[in-house]
């Protein structure tokens, strides 16, 4: 079949369809208004034991109009909040300027004794926040627990409501929330949620661009790639990718000799159609589709070798794609259900969820040169802190610590389907997204313990640390 004829046929079909059918709205998704994500934290190191319960909330806009927002009751404890952050509510709101938030307190106690509440239990806190259409914004309530009780019995908490200014780029972490359509920004120096960015529907895979100036997010439901400018944390561009079924993960290749942040190719794995879509970033479009094995599950790129690696969960293989020709140049058999991979120097670590083992593939020899027993359905992993391996066993809700020798030093429980990991080697933390919860857990690689959990959006999936 000759291409030009097909083109003409499509154009004819297009014209006829348009001529005979009633006009309808374009393919614009339903309007998303704006979203407020409300958190509370306390910076008191040794606070008095004060607890209170919030059972209702209202926002006042610049015109003075109050909007009541129903929330499930939230219990807040000063001792639990010390050094931690608690999520209060996600509020869908109309765009505009807001000047106050009002909490209704159901109950407040100090060391178990009731405190006197203000009339109606209502407390008013001023703020000054402007929300544009489609914005997601994190509002922090900073509670000074030491200044909470007045006249020995009155509950008069000192709370400042603010939209925290973001720290320098290198201190921030992005988390995709596939159940919400936004990215959560975590400050790794403060270890709390400080911001949010609205993206497309179902954001899952996420990678940092080669220059560090862009982050690429795959929106699996809207079939788009959102490109975020990491200096100002806004969606710089959105590219449609109408190809392939069930896109889940992506990788970005940019010529190492090319310094421009807007150049390169995005490789997207499609689990449903068993292929990889190649999107040219500067041209903003799909340029090729490369068939790989059955159920591609993870993807990574090696810029220096100019290769892309894809694990295929049903075929039990690793496909190696040449980025110059965009063809599969090698297929290496690994073990049962390879679900994730990570590149380290001249090796690729493939996490075989079905066989409970990690296959170490030599990039030079193009074969499996070593296997490491894990025993917990390894799904994803990272190498960090002097070649130590950290492996999530999602189905078993565990995180396994493995020494460079291959010995398991500990397996700990991490609730909620732990999935993707990120290492903060400067501050000695491992961050793990728990897909079936709304949490990102912080883990100390030395003590091999969960330190705290940060509440993010629904179904957190990908996580990346920004670079300076």
């Amino acid at each position, binding site marked *: 079949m000759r291409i030009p004829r097909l083109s003409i046929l499509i154009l004819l079909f297009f014209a006829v369809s348009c001529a005979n059918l009633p006009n309808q709205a374009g393919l614009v998704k339903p309007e998303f208004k704006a979203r407020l994500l409300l958190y509370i934290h306390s910076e008191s190191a040794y606070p008095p034991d004060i607890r209170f319960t919030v059972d209702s909330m209202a926002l006042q806009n610049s015109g003075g109009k109050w909007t009541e927002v129903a929330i499930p009751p939230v219990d807040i404890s000063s001792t639990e909040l010390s050094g931690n952050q608690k999520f209060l509510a996600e509020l869908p709101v109309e765009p505009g300027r807001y000047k106050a938030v009002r909490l209704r307190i159901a109950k407040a106690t100090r060391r178990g004794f009731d405190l006197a509440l203000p009339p109606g239990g209502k407390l008013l806190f001023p703020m000054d926040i402007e929300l544009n259409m489609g914005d997601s914004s994190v509002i922090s309530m900073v509670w000074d627990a030491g200044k909470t009780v007045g006249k020995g019995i009155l509950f008069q908490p000192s709370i400042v409501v603010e939209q925290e200014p973001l720290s320098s780029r290198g201190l921030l972490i992005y988390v995709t929330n596939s159940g919400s359509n936004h990215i959560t920004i975590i400050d790794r*120096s403060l270890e709390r949620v400080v911001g949010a960015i609205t993206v497309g529907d179902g954001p899952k895979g996420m990678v940092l661009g080669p220059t560090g100036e862009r982050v690429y997010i795959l929106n699996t439901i809207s079939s788009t790639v959102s490109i975020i400018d990491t200096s100002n944390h806004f969606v710089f561009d959105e590219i449609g990718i109408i190809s392939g079924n069930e896109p889940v993960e992506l990788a970005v290749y940019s010529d190492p000799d090319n310094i421009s942040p807007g150049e390169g190719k995005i490789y997207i794995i499609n689990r449903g159609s068993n292929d990889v879509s190649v999107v040219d970033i500067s041209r903003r479009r799909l340029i090729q589709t490369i068939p790989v094995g059955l159920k591609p599950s993870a993807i990574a790129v090696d810029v220096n070798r100019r290769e892309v690696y894809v694990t295929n969960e049903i075929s039990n293989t690793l496909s190696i794609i040449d980025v110059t020709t965009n063809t599969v140049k090698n297929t290496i058999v690994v073990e049962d259900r390879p679900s994730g991979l990570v590149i380290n120097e001249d090796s690729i670590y493939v996490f075989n969820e079905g066989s409970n083992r990690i296959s170490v593939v030599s990039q030079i020899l193009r074969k499996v040169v070593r296997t490491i027993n894990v025993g917990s359905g390894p799904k994803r992993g990272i190498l960090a802190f002097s070649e130590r391996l950290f492996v999530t066993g999602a189905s078993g809700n565990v995180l396994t610590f493995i020494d460079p020798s291959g010995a398991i030093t500990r397996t700990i429980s991490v609730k909620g389907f732990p999935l993707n990991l990120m290492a903060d080697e*400067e*501050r000695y933390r491992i961050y793990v997204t728990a897909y079936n919860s709304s949490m990102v857990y912080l883990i100390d690689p030395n003590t091999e313990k969960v330190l705290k959990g940060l509440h993010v959006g629904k179904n957190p999936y990908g996580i990346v640390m920004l670079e300076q």
Partner: protein
Amino acid sequence: MSKRFIIYLLAGTLLYMSLPDSTFALNISGNADLTYRQSTTKTASVTTKTETRSERYYINLDLNKRLTSTIALNGSIGMRFSKTGDKESQDFLPQFNLIFSPPPYFNTRFSMGYNRTETGINESNWITTDYWNASITSSPAYWPTFALNYYLSRQFDYEDVHLVDSTTSTITATATYNFTAMDTKIGIVSSFVNTLTEGNVGNATTSETPSNRSNISLSRYFWGKRISVGSALGWSRTKSIQKSDKVQDFSRSQDRSEGLYIDNPPSPTSVTLSNTPSLIDNNIATTANLIDLTSINRNIGLRLSAKRKISKFYLYVNSTATAAQLGAFIFGFNIYKSNDNITWTKIPTAPTVTYNSIFRRYEIDWGGMATTAEYFKVVNTLFVALATVNVTELEAVGPTTETVTDRIETSSDRVNGSLNLTVKPRDWIDFSYNLSYSLSESESDAGLADNFKTTSLGQGINFSVTAVPKYLHFTGNYSNSTTSPSSAPESSSNSYGLSLNSTILPTLRGNLAYVRSDSLSDGALKSTTDSITTNINLGLYKGVDMRFTNVFSISKQIDSGTKSDSQSYQVFLSARPWRQVQWSTTAVKSFADTTSSNGGSTSSTSDTITSTITYYPTKVVYISANFNLEPTMSQSYFATWRIAKTLQTNFNYGTSDISDNMSATIRFTPFQRLTITLRMSETTSGASRSSDFLARASMSL
């Protein structure tokens, strides 16, 4: 054709958009990127300076149209211009996708897309890359899911003789069925994939890789999910068919239009030979026009149907002489050529003459001087009086170029299976076992060396026991993998691991791990490695942690008798005295001794000491310093300061025994869509010094 196509496409789209009833979701985007870069390198007295300016502009129009409630069309038309130095290129980029989504109860989706790029490589030639994709997916409830994908991409140029011309098509068909029967989750997947690539520049090449795969997996829980059993069985067949055309010369009898003859002319170089049809009548039984070789200067020739290259005559004869006599006769043949049957030129090389007794012909070969002409003749300068040798036929043989196809087919079959068993009888103990099997067989037309069969078997056991909750924990594992290729000895490896983890105090934790691994070839032990790792973690003070690691390892190579011992000690210390400050130091000392079979030994030691300090005095300032004290001394410092939301600066400085480097970057974003970047860097290494300056402005719509 291509440019016309684009113009029609653009015109049609714009025309439709201008119709009063048309409703589109439109989006215009674009960007401009201007870069200037200057690099200077000074080595001794030589200074090299390069300047590069580049410009890139791109504009794109996105169109989204829902034609009916189930059919939608989206697409875009983009144009790009880029110039780097003197090199310019421009692209036109139309792209369309048609999406058909029936109501949800059909669970079917059809989409078809077309994507085309026209890249101008010079004023006269463009390269077209176009790409079609079509897919249909159907996943009705309670029934298997079917997916069919087709991709076709083509790249070609507009030269009369193509410099670029290739086509690749891929078809993928997949059926997936997941269901539960008798409390068992069952998944079945079957697929067919075929990729066909054709290259049409020069010699045509074709590559085809059809493959079939099927896989079934089962999993089931027992005893309140305390026992989990999973198994999988897969089969695949992959073929690779490579075809390549090559041009080859073959000796073929050439078409003759006239037989020619004349006896003893005054001069063989200036003569017209008479038409003698019996010389080319394919009758080798009858003497042609009573021509014999009983006298010299018989001019026996032919006229070809056109000018052709000839390298050989077959002169068929009929004689009473025996074959041995005929083979011994010498006629002193000379070969002449002509393009008008008047003027003849002698071919200078004397031909080689052999007598073929089977075909009863003299084979007069001047192959080394194969030449092109319309008329050829052979003239005898000697004659034989012993017997009569009559000429019956003259045939001309020349090289004919023909295309032949090489075909190599390789096929590979694989059967694989796996079994997993996990048992957790109590909360404090769990156990898992896994087994995997794979049999691969390959066959190839290329030769027996490519025919092989490989069997692989792997198994692993893991257990984990919490002896004292929160305080004492054991883990152990064993794994074995064996590979038996038909062309090499069987190889296998074993790994045994045992570790003990103990939390003695909330601030004191340790673990001890032993790992033994060995490798065997054909059942004989080849190498062993034993290693013991000790980790101790100490919480010295709030925010101050220490980790001590010791690894002791012994490796033996059985064949060579080499033994290697190594030890390493690592101390890691981190402190976070304030929230804004983090300091960490890692010190590693390693020893290695290797003893060979002849008693010789070598020893080596290495030390590594690194330290990092990070400091965040405010949210907008970030400072870090890295110090390497061993094995070589180097320092690096990094600072970033976000002066305002729209202005950020970075500074780097590094120094070592080999080189010093420094860089500074300013990034200014006066408004969201415009970014201006200035970067300056300088590196000094010995007598050479290089500097780099970059200025870039990027603006987007």
